[in-house]
């Protein structure tokens, strides 16, 4: 019974989002083509799943470090650089699997680079990761003539991990990697202590350096998953001026939503569910011709703000209803 309740609570967000968007689109002429509501078309499921997979990979990479008390700006640069390397390898060999292997390997190597500089340099994490972001971004201008990678995603044999059904593979692997790290490694379990109070954690015997190395290896693996999906869906051009952080943090909303939704189950499921819910909302807005520009930003901003407010006040809201219930009893 408890498990059923957990499942229902977890699924409530995307289901509610679907119902709300369905009601809105049913009442808008813009969504009807040849008498059919395009929100209910076959493309909806496909687009939501494809976009959610990318979001899940990046959001988990962000959350893994955040969970360990580190706000890492370099994840986006690592992802873009790994994507460029993977794209080049894939185009040279004609093999999607080579590209996948290179993406994962580079994701780990670049993340380890950040970890080493953080440990050896004894820098604050923000300074360290911004510095590494600038360094990695500069490399995007040096690798392979500074041209980035074009045409990988438009080569069907190479870009299958950006399309259904293979796009599910990196997303599922990213979730497994996250679960293994968080629940099956000592480092992952100790991460919460470091996040809450780093000094206290170190004083009770937690080796932070080991935690940093281990967490960056795992987040590197997840960044590799994100990189293969990214290169399979986009041309990748050289980046500068912390543009890669912008790419990375455009996927941050499901992280915070996911941690709240995940209270009913766990954070990895919460993030996946939040990503799906947000993509349903995006698709609905697209159907309403509000998928880009000012209105989309306003609607998204208001919704996210409302959600965060609700989640932060949920204790008080619950207490209020308890009180009313007690008063009526």
């Amino acid at each position, binding site marked *: 019974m408890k498990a059923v309740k957990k499942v229902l609570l977890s699924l409530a967000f995307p289901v509610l989002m679907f119902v709300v968007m369905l009601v809105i689109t049913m009442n808008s002429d*813009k969504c009807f*083509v*040849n008498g059919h509501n*395009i929100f209910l*078309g076959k*493309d909806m499921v*496909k*687009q939501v799943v*494809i976009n959610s997979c990318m979001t899940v990979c990046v959001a988990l990479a962000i959350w893994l470090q955040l969970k360990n008390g580190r706000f890492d700006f370099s994840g986006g640069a690592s992802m873009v650089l790994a994507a460029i390397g993977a794209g080049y390898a894939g185009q040279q060999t004609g093999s999607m699997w080579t590209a996948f292997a290179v993406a994962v390997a580079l994701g780990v190597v670049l993340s380890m680079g950040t970890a080493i500089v953080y440990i050896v340099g004894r820098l604050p994490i923000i300074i360290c990761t911004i510095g590494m972001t600038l360094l990695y971004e500069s490399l995007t*201008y040096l690798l392979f003539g*500074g*041209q*980035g990678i*074009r*045409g990988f*995603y*438009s*080569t*069907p044999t190479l*870009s299958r991990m*950006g*399309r259904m059904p293979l796009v599910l593979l990196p997303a599922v692997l990213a979730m497994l990697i996250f679960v293994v790290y968080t629940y099956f490694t000592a480092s992952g379990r100790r991460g919460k202590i470091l996040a809450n109070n780093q000094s206290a954690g170190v004083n009770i015997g937690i080796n932070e350096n080991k935690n940093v190395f281990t967490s960056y290896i795992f987040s590197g693996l997840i960044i590799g998953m994100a990189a293969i999906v990214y290169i399979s*869906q*986009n*041309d990748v*051009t*050289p980046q*500068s001026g912390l543009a890669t952080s912008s790419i990375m943090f455009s996927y941050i909303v499901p992280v915070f939503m996911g941690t709240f939704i995940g209270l009913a189950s766990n954070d990895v499921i919460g993030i996946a569910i939040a990503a799906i819910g947000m993509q349903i909302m995006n*698709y609905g807005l*697209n*159907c309403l*011709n509000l*998928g*880009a*520009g000012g209105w989309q930003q306003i609607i998204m901003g208001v919704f996210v703000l409302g959600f965060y407010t609700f989640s932060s006040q949920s204790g008080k809201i619950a207490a209020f209803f308890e009180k009313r219930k007690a008063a009526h009893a």
Partner: protein
Amino acid sequence: MKTSKKIMALALTGALAASSVSVVSVSAEPKKATIGVCFYQDTGKAPNATKAFLESLADTLNVEFKYGTFTQTDEAANLTKVQELIASGVDGIIGTMDLGTQSILSECEAAGIYYAGYLCDFDTSYTTAYDDVFGNSNFLGTVVDGHAPDDVNIGDQFFDSLIEYNERNADAPLTHVSMAVFPVWAFPAQTTAAEQFVADVEEYNKTAETPITVDPLDEEVDVLNFAPLDSTYFSKHPDTQAIMSFAAGTSFVYPTMVSAGVDSDIKLFTTGADGGEETNFGSAGTQTYQQIAFTGAESIVYPLVLMLNKINDTEFADMPEKAERISTELYIVNSDEDMELYVNSLYNTADAANAAYTPEDVLNMTAFGNPDATYAGLVEAVQTLTY
């Protein structure tokens, strides 16, 4: 591309080459000059090809080039870039953005250097500050990326490409198309081109055996606010067989086609060429692309020659009184044969050996390099860069 047009273009190129060879007579050693060139992005086909072409000219024209990037939105940033270039000692600046032009010209006037445009119609200045900009003696004019907004023809060219496709594929012609454009406030010529295309189709349908349906331009669906095409575009145009993208289709339309899985079913006719199109162009690969179009990087000779003339204190006898904006003919790539030419072009390879003009040709276009050179000849050199 029609054969007659190709023959005409070849003849023009041949004639130009012949005349160039016959009249090279350098009257004086060019003065040492430094010219700043600011592109709209720091990398990409057009900047890379232009840089390669300019570097190939450096020794012959005795010019050192310095490169920078203008932004599309930040007037102050562009002004700062100009000030940096002036401080580094440039004699002139070629810019690709009409943003803060009057402020930039004030800086150039104060520094006694020249300013000119490339791949930009300077339409804001042309329509709102014509005298201040085009009447300014430090502004030398601009060469447009295609036709100027008051002289649009790209709609006709899209129509020609569509008809040529249908003639080649008479058994499966495209009979239903939709469009995509950037917002009218940013690129008014694209909306005009779309209207031109629709008018051409309507005229064609009067006598056509197989009429073509064009979905009317829907402001909410077909206007791209500098974001990729919406994934619901195909649901909203369920019958479309081809997208006529007057906006840059490779970056803004094609990715959505691929992610929606319609790239094998729907054709794309577009302006621009960002690289990688050849894999799925014409009869290759998924056959998605059926037209790309670009302006030759060699068209930078227009502002460059005018600037070098000024720096070398020379002038064409037929130089117009006020600065002008010059339309270019696009390279329209709409067949496998055109694609072969494109693949080996300067624009695609960024190899100056593939340029339409050698350094000697360009020197011969200048007033100091060739006393017989004319402004009309320079304009013709730019406007014959087409297949």
